[in-house]
């Protein structure tokens, strides 16, 4: 039987896939001594060329995604929908693509600085992005698993991309081992879910899932563990600081944002569709995970001296905030999560890009003290960093405040609706945590503005590409805070449009 296939559903993925497949080829062709232009490419020009090429693919994919955002939902194969391109998938793809584009722009000079300017970087990045895009739209367990691996395996390599650096190598190794271990757990959970329900489609599982039965719940628990690892929620978080610190900074920015975006997409879909019958039980568990993530993430971040490590802990805390929206489990809650993911991507990549620019001569300068006097020497970088820190801390009117506001508001509204005080406590703990978090976010501007640079310091000038990244993040962090309403309305609509197809089947 020939299935009804809708290639158009793959629209946004195709350019990225083309990039992922052709970029290694282009790299090889250009690496030859004599190229088709009969002039050898210097390594630098080769890097720039590949970056621009991958950017092109990403931007085309971005345009297609934006077009599809409010269009009808599509499935690849109507008989056996492997992926569902609904509003949520499109939106998360947009965030992933934005994050990836900013990463590509921010990588060019950084890779040269750390002497790791290999063309394969972009090919791996594109493969990973492709995996993320499938992950956000996967509608059955097999696609979920494959997409997860397609996302993760290139990242293992990217984390170790500074081949001669012991730290980078260790980061890759840890990420690989723990990641594969978590994949194993996830896979076993999926096997059990399949065995109990007889289907690998999320929707079918949702129909047949029996929240009373122990093996069903065992499968659900293992799947939550596997996804909990990917979003690095406490207690599956410990790899994150180590891996983030050791990986090249541009890769860290990428890992800290897009991976979480995609994994949250998968988590929401799994929770809202496949495990919906067990929602109440699971939300209890997620509640604890959320509170632990927020609190431990913030407390641990306070005593960090390394910015990358501090941001890693801070990202764990942010996972806690994001889980609030997932636990709320209403359209409003999901819309808040989507919005926060967008905001989080900008503020985190902005911060990591500043750290990446500071790297020089093969050395990362990623200690908090390394930023001393930045407001004097590089005011733009200092302003971007400051705003990103304020946004991460949730100070109005930055975008971070708006994101947190929506999350906690959704929790409170839901709490009133169903008379559940635990949601109030979640919101209160969240607000308290964001107050605590200021203690360490504030250190960064403090050092930049109120301390003089050591005489030897000569921070690097941001190049054109980096300037673009910085200004984009700056604009996004400010604008999403000042005029967030249109975006949020779009998100509410996308969440609502997805509702009928896959997400939230129960009215």
């Amino acid at each position, binding site marked *: 039987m020939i299935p009804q296939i809708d290639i158009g559903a793959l629209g946004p993925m195709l350019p990225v896939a083309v990039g992922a497949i052709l970029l290694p080829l282009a790299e090889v062709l250009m690496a030859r001594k004599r190229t088709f232009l009969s002039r050898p490419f210097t390594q630098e020009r080769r890097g720039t060329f590949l970056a621009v090429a991958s950017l092109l693919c990403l931007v085309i994919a971005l345009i297609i995604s934006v077009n599809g955002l409010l269009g009808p939902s599509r499935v690849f194969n109507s008989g056996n929908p492997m992926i569902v391109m609904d509003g949520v998938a499109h939106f998360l793809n947009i965030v992933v693509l934005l994050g990836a584009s900013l990463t590509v722009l921010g990588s060019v000079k950084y890779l040269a600085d750390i002497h790791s300017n290999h063309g394969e970087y972009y090919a791996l990045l594109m493969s990973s992005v492709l995996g993320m895009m499938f992950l956000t739209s996967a509608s059955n367990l097999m696609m979920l698993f494959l997409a997860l691996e397609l996302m993760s395996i290139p990242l293992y390599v990217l984390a170790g991309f500074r081949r001669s650096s012991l730290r980078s190598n260790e980061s890759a190794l840890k990420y690989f081992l723990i990641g594969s*271990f978590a*994949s194993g757990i996830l896979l076993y959970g999926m096997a059990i879910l399949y065995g109990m329900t007889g289907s690998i489609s999320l929707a079918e599982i949702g129909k047949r899932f029996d929240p009373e039965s122990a093996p069903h719940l065992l499968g659900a628990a293992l799947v939550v563990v596997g996804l909990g690892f990917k979003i690095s929620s406490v207690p599956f978080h410990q790899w994150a600081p180590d891996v983030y610190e050791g990986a090249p900074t541009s890769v860290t920015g990428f890992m800290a944002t897009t991976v979480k975006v995609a994994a949250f997409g998968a988590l929401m879909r799994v929770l809202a569709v496949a495990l919906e019958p067990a929602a109440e039980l699971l939300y209890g568990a997620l509640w604890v995970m959320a509170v632990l993530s927020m609190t431990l993430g913030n407390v641990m971040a306070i005593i960090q001296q390394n910015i990358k490590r501090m941001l890693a802990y801070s990202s764990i805390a942010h996972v806690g905030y994001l889980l609030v929206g997932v636990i709320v489990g209403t359209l409003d809650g999901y819309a808040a999560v989507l919005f926060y993911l967008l905001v989080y991507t900008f503020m985190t990549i902005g911060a990591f890009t500043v750290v990446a620019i500071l790297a020089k001569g093969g050395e990362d300068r990623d200690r908090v003290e390394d930023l001393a006097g930045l407001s004097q020497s590089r005011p733009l970088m200092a302003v971007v960093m400051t705003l990103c820190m304020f946004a991460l801390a949730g100070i109005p009117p930055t975008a971070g405040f708006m994101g947190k506001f929506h999350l906690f508001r959704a929790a409170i509204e839901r709490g009133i609706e169903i008379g559940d005080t635990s949601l109030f406590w979640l919101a209160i703990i969240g607000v308290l945590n964001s107050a605590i978090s200021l203690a360490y976010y504030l250190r960064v501007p403090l050092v930049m503005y109120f301390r003089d640079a050591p005489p030897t310091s000569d921070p690097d000038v941001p190049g054109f590409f980096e300037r673009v990244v910085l200004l984009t993040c700056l604009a996004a962090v400010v604008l999403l805070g000042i005029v967030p309403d249109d975006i949020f309305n779009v998100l509410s609509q996308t969440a609502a449009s997805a509702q009928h197809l896959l997400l939230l089947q129960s009215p």
Partner: protein
Amino acid sequence: MIEAWEYQVVAGLLFMIGTLGVLVRRNVIVIVMCIELMLNAANLSLIAFSRQWGNHDGQIFVFMVIVVAAVEVAVGLAIILRLVSNRDTVNIEDTSLLKW
């Protein structure tokens, strides 16, 4: 007649052994092998369930898992090669530069 649950018990035990290996062994190559054991346990479980439900989903899933396993091993061993050439060790406990 062998029943479905017997396969599941074998798969469960295999998974347990794999997990134990990841936790206990310090040789990174063996740890990767143990992760393979975990994947294989899941495979067995999937195949048995596939037989139990009489549909092919599980078998196709295993097909994909085998592909994933192959890629994972290739990449993982390459990372371990880097480790050895950088540090001359395969002991996981020697890699703790990144901490706290």
